[in-house]
């Protein structure tokens, strides 16, 4: 009888598949019942009591299941699965969030990776914040330099630095003469240079002190690139003799792969600096050669203290300066970071600001969307809660959704960021330091992902955390209005930020078109520049140099289609050119100009057809002529600006300039003409006055062996390039030639503003897209939420246009408020852009009229599409649906 009862009980209790646990519990119950019956209890009562004592069998089963070490993975999978189903049901929401996260994370990560190196990342040296660049600065040279004679004294007498080391001022071309000769860039530094930066060679060793002495053993270090590229990474490179500029030198070391010169120059071969105090006392009028000097501050010494300690030395040096130069030369000590990043920092900060703004928009978007979704799901949450889901479970579900979305968005964002970095690298001009070294930074990626997830999670949870009320079950009372104000504010802020971004980008765009359209004062089309650098170890006399270039000039003139050929030491409007001080000009019969006034003048030493080749018009007097080359007199042509400065209200023709700056010796030079101004200080800076001196057929006029031929031709550039090349090699077949149409190099000059404009424009557009997505999403959501209300209104006789007005009015108010706030802020912060703008006011009216109009238009579309959808509501359907 008992066993029959127990069997029945078994089937009553365990109808599911029997497990070991079931059998165990069953065993337990049998014993419990048997004990009670043995104690004299009625079997039915015994069963009842035993079951009561045991408690919930199902819950025991669940509890036991939960002890399994990884049981929660199953529930996470369940959550993820549920999340995906939810996304599938609501594709508009999912896509909006994904787009937002992809763009937000992608764009911000990419740009932050770029600016991070400029603004925040330490330089690749050991303890870089203690390294300074130290030296003189001058109105003509803004980067610190030290003349050799003074450096010898500084080395001995300086107190604030633990190490000080010099590097030659500029890389120079040098020839590696081997079975396949190449022209390379050479530089030299002292043996103390690498230790100062905490760098040790990748292979071999640094220079020894005895190698860094005058007439020391000839040794060199080579760059990693040269080692890998030219020598195929040959490990036997050490101790090998290579021939540089005709002199054999022993390779002692290879620089590290990522080594970066503090001047950001690129060099292939480094030789010891071998400072010779005796020589430095003599050359360059007794001042010695200029050099770049870097030093490491002693512990505890600040830059200001170092400055104070170096000042007496500097003042001593100043005594030997010519009076005219004294007032314009200053001591400067600044950190290496300042020296390396100063001119890119404004752009970097603006970019950084843009990054933050876009990130803010993205966060606002995610937050708004999550809140909207949360509000829309209250009924569902209430149902789940009513059938037994705990609050923890609901919250975990919300978290799972946020994490899954963020993960997908983050992944897509990373791909976008990587792609963007490649694009940036392609677009970036060579002048921007570090950009080629920028790589996707995972820390930044994780940071941006976390930020956007945090927004999503915070606002997603805001709704999940509220205990779903039973009221939500009967959907007639919508609780969506709880957060309506917050959501509206978010959209308003987004609009405001995108106005700021857009107007900033528009200002830059305007500035860029100004740069492109400006009158340069010369022709750039149909002009080929031919750079011919003669190796100084073979062309070691002025005679050889002059012969070469004059032969080149006459052979280029004979080419078919050639209109004019000029030889010059530099070409406008950018790049290297020789500058001198205005105050150093002496005009016969005029009092000397007070030193320190007038700024700098560009001096160009040219052959007679230079102005013709660039089509720079002569406004007064005459142009140079071929017969001037052999005449006794020396002729100069002034730019209009220089003529007005030197001879205000006078006729400059026939005036005599006495020897001084740029006119080295002899009886001086006669002004024969005035040429129109040509842009000569880069594309964006104010032009300097300019003086053209004629290269006569005299040896004195042919110093320097890096000259440029300018060919004005009627033929296409592609057609004459091979001819030019063969003409050069028929004179000397080992000379490398660099050719480029002038408008191409001009284009390169505009690269930097173009890059900045593209980058910021891209950001502004990203911001706009995000803001519009946010606006659209919100209006669409609010319209859906109000379906019932719209149905009632229409049933009571409201027309479609009434409804359209009702919804659009709401959105337009947000846009208007956003516009006003945004415009105000934009006007207030646009001053930050000032240094980046060219001939465009930071309050440019056109920009501040167009951009709000544009944005209103886009916003209107984003409002009208969902609003129109709202008017299609059929009142009969919506009212019955409840």
């Amino acid at each position, binding site marked *: 009888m008992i066993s029959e009862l127990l069997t029945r009980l078994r089937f009553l209790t365990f109808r599911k598949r029997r497990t070991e646990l079931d059998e*165990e519990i069953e*065993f337990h119950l049998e014993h419990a019942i048997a004990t009670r019956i043995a104690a004299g209890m009625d079997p039915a009562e015994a069963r009842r009591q035993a079951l009561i004592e045991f408690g919930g069998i199902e819950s*025991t089963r669940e*509890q036991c299941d939960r*002890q399994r*070490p990884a049981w929660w993975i199953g529930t996470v999978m369940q959550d993820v699965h549920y999340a995906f189903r939810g996304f599938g049901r609501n594709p508009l929401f999912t896509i909006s969030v994904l787009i937002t996260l992809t763009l937000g994370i992608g764009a911000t990560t990419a740009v932050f990776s770029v600016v991070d190196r400029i603004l925040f990342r330490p330089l690749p040296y050991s303890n870089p914040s203690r390294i300074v660049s130290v030296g003189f600065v001058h109105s003509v040279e803004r980067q610190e330099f030290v003349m050799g004679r003074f450096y010898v004294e500084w080395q001995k007498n300086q107190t604030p630095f633990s190490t000080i080391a010099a590097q030659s001022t500029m890389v120079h071309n040098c020839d590696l003469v081997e079975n396949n000769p190449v022209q390379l860039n050479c530089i030299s530094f002292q043996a103390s240079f690498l230790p100062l930066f905490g760098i040790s060679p990748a292979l071999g060793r640094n220079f020894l002190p005895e190698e860094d002495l005058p007439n020391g053993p000839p040794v060199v270090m080579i760059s990693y690139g040269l080692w890998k590229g030219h020598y195929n990474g040959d490990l036997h490179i050490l101790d090998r003799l290579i021939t540089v500029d005709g002199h054999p030198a022993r390779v002692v070391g290879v620089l590290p792969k990522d080594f970066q010169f503090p001047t950001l120059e690129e060099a292939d071969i480094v030789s010891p600096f071998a400072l010779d105090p005796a020589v430095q006392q003599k050359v360059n009028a007794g001042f010695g050669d200029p050099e770049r000097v870097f030093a490491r501050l002693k512990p505890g010494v600040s830059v200001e203290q170092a400055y104070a300690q170096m000042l007496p030395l500097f003042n001593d040096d100043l005594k030997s300066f010519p009076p005219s130069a004294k007032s314009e030369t200053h001591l400067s000590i600044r950190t290496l970071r300042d020296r390396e990043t100063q001119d890119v920092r404004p752009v970097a900060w603006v970019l950084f600001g843009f990054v933050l703004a876009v990130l803010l928009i993205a966060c606002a978007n995610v937050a708004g969307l999550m809140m909207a979704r949360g509000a829309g799901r209250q009924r569902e949450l209430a149902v789940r809660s009513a059938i037994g889901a705990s609050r923890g479970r609901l919250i975990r579900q919300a978290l799972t959704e946020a994490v899954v979305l963020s993960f997908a968005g983050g992944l897509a964002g990373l791909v976008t960021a990587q792609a963007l970095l490649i694009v940036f690298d392609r677009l970036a001009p060579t002048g921007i330091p570090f950009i080629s070294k920028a790589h996707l930074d995972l820390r930044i990626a994780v940071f941006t992902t976390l930020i956007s997830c945090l927004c999503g999670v915070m606002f997603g949870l805001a709704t999940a955390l509220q205990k779903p009320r039973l009221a939500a079950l009967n959907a007639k009372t919508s609780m969506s209005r709880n957060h309506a104000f917050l959501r509206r504010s978010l959209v308003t802020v987004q609009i405001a930020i995108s106005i700021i971004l857009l107007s900033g980008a528009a200002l830059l765009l305007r500035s860029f078109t100004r740069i492109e359209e400006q009158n340069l004062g010369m022709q750039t089309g149909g002009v080929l520049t031919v750079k011919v650098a003669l190796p100084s170890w073979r062309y070691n006399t002025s005679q050889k140099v002059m012969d070469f270039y004059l032969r080149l000039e006459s052979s280029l003139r004979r080419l078919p289609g050639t209109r004019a050929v000029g030889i010059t030491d530099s070409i406008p409007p950018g790049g290297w050119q020789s500058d001198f001080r205005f105050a150093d000009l002496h005009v016969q019969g005029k009092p000397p100009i007070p030193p320190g006034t007038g700024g700098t003048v560009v001096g160009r030493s040219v052959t007679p057809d230079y102005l013709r080749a660039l089509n720079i018009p002569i406004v007064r007097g005459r142009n140079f002529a071929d017969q001037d080359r052999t005449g006794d007199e020396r002729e100069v042509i002034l730019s209009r600006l220089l003529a007005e400065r030197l001879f205000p209200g006078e006729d400059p023709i026939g005036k005599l300039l006495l020897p001084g700056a740029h006119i080295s010796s002899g009886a001086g030079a006669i002004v024969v003409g005035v040429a129109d101004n040509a842009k000569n200080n880069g594309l964006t800076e104010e032009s300097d006055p300019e003086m053209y001196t004629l290269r006569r057929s005299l040896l004195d006029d042919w110093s320097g062996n890096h000259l440029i031929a300018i060919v004005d031709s009627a033929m296409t550039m592609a057609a004459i390039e091979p001819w030019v090349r063969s003409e050069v090699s028929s004179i000397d077949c080992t000379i490398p030639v660099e050719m480029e149409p002038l408008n191409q190099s001009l284009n390169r000059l505009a690269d930097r503003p173009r890059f900045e404009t593209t980058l910021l424009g891209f950001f502004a557009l990203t911001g706009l897209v995000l803001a519009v997505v946010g606006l659209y999403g919100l209006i669409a959501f609010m319209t859906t939420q109000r379906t019932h209300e719209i149905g009632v209104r229409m049933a009571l006789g409201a027309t479609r246009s009434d409804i359209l007005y009702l919804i659009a009015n709401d959105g337009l108010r947000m846009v208007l408020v956003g516009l006003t706030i945004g415009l105000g802020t934009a006007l207030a912060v646009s001053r930050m852009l000032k240094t980046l703008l060219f001939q465009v006011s930071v309050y440019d009216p056109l920009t501040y009229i167009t951009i709000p109009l544009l944005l209103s238009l886009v916003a209107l579309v984003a409002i009208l599409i969902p609003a129109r959808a709202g008017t299609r509501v059929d009142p009969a359907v919506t009212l019955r649906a409840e």
Partner: protein
Amino acid sequence: MPQSTDLLQGTLDLLILQTLALEPMHGWGVAQRIQQLSKDVLQIGQGSLYPALYRLEYKGWIRSEWQITENNRRAKYYRLTQTGKKQLTTELATWDRLSSAIASVLGRATEAAS
């Protein structure tokens, strides 16, 4: 029925281990034994007994096997493993330290010691 005392967190594990240290036993036996030894003060709710047994088994402190009881019934017997024995020693030491600490805080150090 005497008021059953709430078990301290982790104490149930200790009691089960101690009970199984004597001989292998099935779940019902463990519950009965604890109740007897505590003179009905400690009544193990089955809702917490079986989860605790499973937890200890997952931790590797006890092992289970099916055996035939004296009544010819199949039952799941639990026995202490080697690690379980070590765990029991440490838990007992911890318990002694804890209880004497609590006793001295409550000012009953002498009573507890006697």
